[in-house]
């Protein structure tokens, strides 16, 4: 296990796991225009972390439950006539604020929380790695298994129903997968930047793709590049790792967008 003893190797593996799971899922987030859904689930994670740290639970399950509860609440609100952005705005900021308040009320956890807000990929343990790759495999498996049904439901719910697919069930699958990704990614980029790993690689992959599958694969590749590039940058310039990864992803987005424009204008 000498390879895994190296903290950089563990960091790279953790980042790659999250990037691979987030890419196909992130494509649906982009196609369905639910970028802020990822944000809201991530903010709910702060509340989960606060409770876990304060009451001495394990962090990962607490985050998972909080993220799931948030997703269900938002879905219930939109079902009752609230616009999606209103529901997300209310729930997302409430969760973040309540989490920060809860942390202050529960003494001694303030320092720990910083690690969860911004992530600490260099502190990933072998145990974390197992959880991250387990979660990533679960999400990837789920997405691959439901892929055609998810795609058709995203395109048009009525077409899905005409093909005997229940679009609401597919939405639940997506919600569940999103909650899992947020829970496992929290250590890598932190709560505040998780949504960026979901949205930026697919957005960067869009100009290079002709089919949904191409876009998902390209997003996975770009996400992996961003992770490794960001790690390298963080190590070379002594910058925080999570933000460095996101900045690298943003650079890739810029690059592919310009490329796409050039190709279109030719």
């Amino acid at each position, binding site marked *: 296990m000498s390879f895994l003893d190296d903290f950089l190797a563990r960091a790279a593996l953790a980042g790659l796991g999250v990037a691979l799971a987030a890419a196909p899922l992130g494509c649906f987030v*982009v*196609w*369905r*225009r639910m970028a802020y859904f990822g944000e809201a689930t991530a903010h709910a994670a702060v509340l989960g972390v606060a409770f876990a740290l304060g009451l001495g639970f394990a962090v990962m399950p607490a985050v998972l439950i909080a993220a799931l509860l948030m997703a269900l609440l938002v879905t219930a609100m939109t079902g009752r006539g609230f616009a999606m952005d209103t529901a997300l705005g209310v729930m997302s900021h409430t969760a973040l604020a309540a989490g920060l308040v809860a942390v202050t009320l529960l003494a001694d956890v303030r320092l720990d929380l910083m690690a969860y807000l911004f992530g600490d990929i260099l502190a990933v343990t072998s145990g974390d790695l197992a959880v991250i790759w387990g979660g990533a495999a679960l999400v990837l498996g789920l997405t691959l298994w439901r892929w*055609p*049904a998810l*795609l*058709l439901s*995203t*395109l*048009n*719910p*009525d*077409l*899905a*129903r*005409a*093909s*005997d*697919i229940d679009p609401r069930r597919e939405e639940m699958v997506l919600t569940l997968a999103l909650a899992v990704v947020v829970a496992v990614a929290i250590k890598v980029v932190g709560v505040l930047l998780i949504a960026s790993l979901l949205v930026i690689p*697919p*957005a960067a992959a*869009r100009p290079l*793709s*002709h*089919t*949904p*599958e*191409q*876009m998902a694969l390209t997003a996975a590749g770009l996400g992996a590049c961003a992770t490794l590039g960001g790690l390298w940058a963080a190590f070379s310039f002594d910058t925080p790792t999570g933000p460095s990864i996101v900045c690298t992803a943003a650079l890739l987005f810029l690059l592919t967008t310009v490329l796409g424009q050039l190709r279109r204008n030719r």
Partner: protein
Amino acid sequence: MSAPLIAARDLTIRRGGHTILEHVDVEIAAGEIVTIVGPNGSGKSTFLKALIGALKPSSGSIERLPGLRIGYVPQKLAIDQSLPLTVRRFLGLPRRIGRREADALLARAGADHLADRQMVDLSGGQFQRVLLARALLETPQLLLLDEATQGLDQPGSAAFYRRIEEVRSELGCAVVMVSHDLHVVMAASDRVVCLNGHICCQGTPEIVADAPEYRALFGSGTKGTLALYRHEHSHDHDHDHGSDPHHHLAHEDHGG
């Protein structure tokens, strides 16, 4: 006569406190072309969505022949710019199909050479033909079209309806379509159902065109308003229908 492919039995659909469809009885037999006409908000799309199972009846039921294969062309399909999708890939949803099968389907719908185009780049007419191609994928016994000619000009929609008739004679499928293009549709249909929250009248195009209920609903020019008004008072209302003023009894075939 053999059992109908699909039948609405005393179908009532309410949404958000409003009654959209009330006591609708329609049977669709194999191979017939049925057109649903009616003013805006008369529940035409709702009726089709109930047939495909997207909407649950508040009361009454939809009976399908077991294993019925349905092809559905929705009223509109907004594809997000962020979703890259070629025509060929679209046809292979949710079941992957081979290149040759896709091309054969496109040819049947009159959309040859579009296979590699992006869905978001298609014109209105091309888009409708691709939607039709996808609906023909499982060689349906029943083809449902919701305002399929929306956004097409007159020659465009006339061509589209001719194609529907060709498809019907090739596949022998029944066709149920919702339409605004009354004159074009009437000529192509075996049967017309005039809907306005309930069935106003139904029958062959000639019978429906002569029915006072139909004329009342589609009276031309300024007389339309008057006709609609007369229409409301020329009917006996022999059962309770709450506060909905647009309610009339079916004039024939009520109760199927």
